[in-house]
């Protein structure tokens, strides 16, 4: 049934996009329409607008020449309170044969306005109203994408449905577009996700600020969003999407943030055992998936929720949890020290089951896993913190899939994403443990030996780890608070 409907829809779409056969050149929107497209690209330091004015025969006959100056003058846009001053970077007026030997015309303008760049994280409002040929009938379309900025709560599409006034869709269930004004916010320094949920299935041209790795991740992001929203899902595409989601999750976790340092330090502190790693992995995945689903649901059901603020709050919570876990470790460590005498172990003493021969062997530890700093609680806490802040790109994928009626597929992708994230985070922990062991195993090496001695002499190595965890948590929370204000 669904497939059939899809075919039907496909045929319908094909039908309406087929150019008119007869009579030659009649303007699809009537011969006195003035049709306008405004495509905005917002960058940290400038806004550019691609403007197209497609005029049917009669308006062209009424006034043959129109200029970009008029179009720019009627385009009232502000960033914060500052009105944008457009400069015309390109202008092109062409005429095309219409009906009754009367031409139609197409004016293309590239406008650019410089804005004052602000530091990373600044959230700025962008308000635009187009008053050109206001009283005249015609298609009015606006799109907006961010380039080096992230658009927040953008009501605008990211891609022109009319291919910039070249092919007007004639879906009988959609009224002609009439978008003449818009108001949105953008955040400097965001990655590619043009306002979570808005960009699904589109190829927004946003490019992230940041290094080559960030760019790579961003491009994978878009690929995934495209896949999730692909017109038809074949098994291969589905498989690819899941793999990509996994890779993306892994990649995203490798970007700054996510409390990886805290997680790794914590894992290291606990000796990085396999069972616990699996638990950690599961927690991060579950929290992240749950978080994305919950936030996604909130964003879908309520327009009142600003996704940005929600993420910031979650960031604060996440940071707070990390701090709490660190504090717990610290307390546990201190208490452990005070108890230690009764057990005949000194705090700085090496573990009875030495790792010196084999970095892989931890089998003997499984019996006492609840007695290490933080215990299970800490484990959950750190996992929770790692997964609590939903990754915007996972949100985009989910909301895009929901929008296309593929909720379950979206959820699956989010799970894969979470697994990928967790894998990176856990791997980071393992890596740290590996480094430790490498250091310990080189006991004969003088430097390592000395280092080991130095480290061993540090009575507060545990304290340091706990403190590190706390500092990282505080950092996370502060970052989130900064984004909120």
């Amino acid at each position, binding site marked *: 049934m669904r497939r059939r409907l899809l075919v039907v829809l496909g045929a319908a779409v094909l039908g309406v996009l087929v150019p008119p056969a007869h*009579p030659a050149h009649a303007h699809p929107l009537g011969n006195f329409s003035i049709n306008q497209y405004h495509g905005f690209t917002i960058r940290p330091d400038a806004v550019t607008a691609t403007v197209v004015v497609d005029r049917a025969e009669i308006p062209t006959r009424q006034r043959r020449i129109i200029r970009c100056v008029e179009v720019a003058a009627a385009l009232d846009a502000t960033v914060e309170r500052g009105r944008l001053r457009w400069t015309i970077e390109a202008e092109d007026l062409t005429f095309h044969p219409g*009906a009754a030997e009367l031409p139609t015309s197409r004016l293309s303008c590239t406008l650019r306005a410089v804005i004052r760049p602000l530091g990373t994280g600044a959230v700025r409002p962008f308000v635009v109203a187009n008053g050109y040929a206001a009283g005249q009938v015609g298609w009015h379309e606006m799109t907006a994408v961010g380039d080096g900025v992230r658009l927040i709560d953008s009501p605008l599409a990211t891609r022109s449905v009319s291919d910039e006034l070249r092919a007007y869709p004639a879906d009988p269930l959609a*009224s*002609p577009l009439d978008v003449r004004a818009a108001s949105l916010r953008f955040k400097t320094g965001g990655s590619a996700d043009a306002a979570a949920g808005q960009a699904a299935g589109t190829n927004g041209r946003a490019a992230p600020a940041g290094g080559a790795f960030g760019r790579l991740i961003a491009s994978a992001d878009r690929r995934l969003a495209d896949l999730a929203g692909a017109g038809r899902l074949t098994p291969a595409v589905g498989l690819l999407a899941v793999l990509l989601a996994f890779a993306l999750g892994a990649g995203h976790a490798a970007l700054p943030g996510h409390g990886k340092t805290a997680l790794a330090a914590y894992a290291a502190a606990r000796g990085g055992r396999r069972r616990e790693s699996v638990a950690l992995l599961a927690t991060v995945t579950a929290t992240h998936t749950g978080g994305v689903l919950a936030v996604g649901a909130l*964003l879908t059901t309520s327009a009142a929720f600003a996704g940005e603020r929600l993420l910031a709050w979650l960031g604060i919570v996440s940071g707070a949890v990390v701090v709490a876990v660190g504090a717990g470790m610290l307390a546990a460590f201190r208490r452990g020290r005070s108890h230690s005498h009764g057990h005949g172990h000194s705090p700085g003493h090496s573990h009875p089951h030495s790792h010196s021969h084999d970095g892989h062997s931890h089998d003997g530890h499984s019996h006492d896993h609840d007695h290490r700093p933080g215990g299970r609680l800490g484990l959950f806490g750190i996992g929770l913190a790692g997964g609590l802040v939903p990754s915007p790109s996972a949100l985009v994928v989910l*909301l895009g899939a929901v929008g296309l009626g593929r909720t379950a597929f979206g959820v699956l*992708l989010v799970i894969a994403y979470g*697994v990928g994230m967790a894998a990176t985070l856990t791997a980071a922990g393992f890596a740290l443990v590996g480094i430790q062991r490498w250091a310990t195993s080189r006991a004969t090496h003088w430097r390592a030996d000395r280092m080991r001695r130095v480290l061993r002499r540090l009575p507060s190595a545990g304290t340091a780890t706990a403190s590190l965890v706390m500092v990282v948590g505080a950092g996370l929370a502060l970052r989130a608070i900064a984004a909120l204000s």
Partner: protein
Amino acid sequence: MRRHRVVRATIVIVVAAAAILSIGAAFGRQSGPPPRQVAVRAASGPAASADPIVRAQERLRLVPRDWRTWAGLAVAYLERGRTTADPSYYPKADEAVRRSLALRPDDNADASVARGALANARHDFAAARRDALAATRLNAYGANAYAVLADAETQLGRPADATAAVQRLLDLRPGLSAYARGSYDLEQRGALAAATDLMRRALDAAMSPSDIAFCRGQLGDLAWLAGDLSGAAEQYAAGLGADPHAVSLLRGRARVAAASGRLDAAIADYADVTRRSPTVGYLLEYARLLRTAGRTREAAEQLALANDAQRLFVANGGVDGLTAAELAIEAGRPSDAVAAARAEWARRRHADVADILGWALHLAARDGEALRYARLAGARGALSATYAYHVGMIELSLGQRRAARADLERALRRNPAFSPIDAPAARRALAGLGGAR
């Protein structure tokens, strides 16, 4: 031992990965439901409204085979096209009718009505009449079919059938749609007071701003017909308050301004009207107004524009002999005007066509024939000052001075300012006849 564990762990991981991947592939296999709407609505959808178009669209997304709602959507698009003067709604209406008929080719009165309404909008009144009659055969109680039928019969110049259709409409479904048509029917028969009364009733029943604007506009036109300029101005202003974009009200306001001697205001309004809705009719009126104001160069420009617009209309398959005749008259080509008006008369025998045909014949110096048509225009009793003026001028040309005097006086009595060009001409002619008594 250890190796065993590693192997086991590897197997677990591989199996889990395979499971997730195959689930993904499985999801890929069963393609999801078709996109109901653009995914953009996910985060912040615009509020749905009481807008009948939006409601019909939403219902059709839920119940896509509802051929009745497809027909309803077509009518809603037509209404929007009418109130906004935006022609891009018409192809959509057309498509919606096709969908309805594709779903239910027979016994589909709703689609017949919608198709008939579309034909009326295209000035294909004969086709509209056929569709409306077909609909009434399918559903003798369907009010909308009689509304479409009434419009078609009226334009085709079959007054008795038109009145019968309107009466049937009023008997089935008194309301805005019926009152407005009843009012027009009365107006054409010269019953201005009753027409005004009924249009007030329509105004009381109107709920949407565009309907209110329509009724106000008609009340303004009725006041204008009766020569009540201030009453007309009041109605137009009130209508524009309800719907500032109603072009026909702007045009009404401009006409009043011109009649009151405020030519600049009238020209400004007409410039606005022809920018918003550059139809041949409005362009022609604008050209005449500019000519009255002595701005002949601009007038010629607008006339040329009107000519091109008409060519475009014809090239796109439109048929409208009435406008063609008016254009030819304005351009000083009376024989072309006669030909165009005759062709239109062969299609439909509306009073307006008779009037223009008569006037074109007069300008072509065939006054004998002209008088017959010009008198036909007013035969049902329509109280148009222009009709009377045309009759009077033809009579004058034929040397029937007494009749001419009576008709010219009648024209000026009805509306002393009925046209910025013709009213002064009527006065001059009357003066030549020895002045009004």
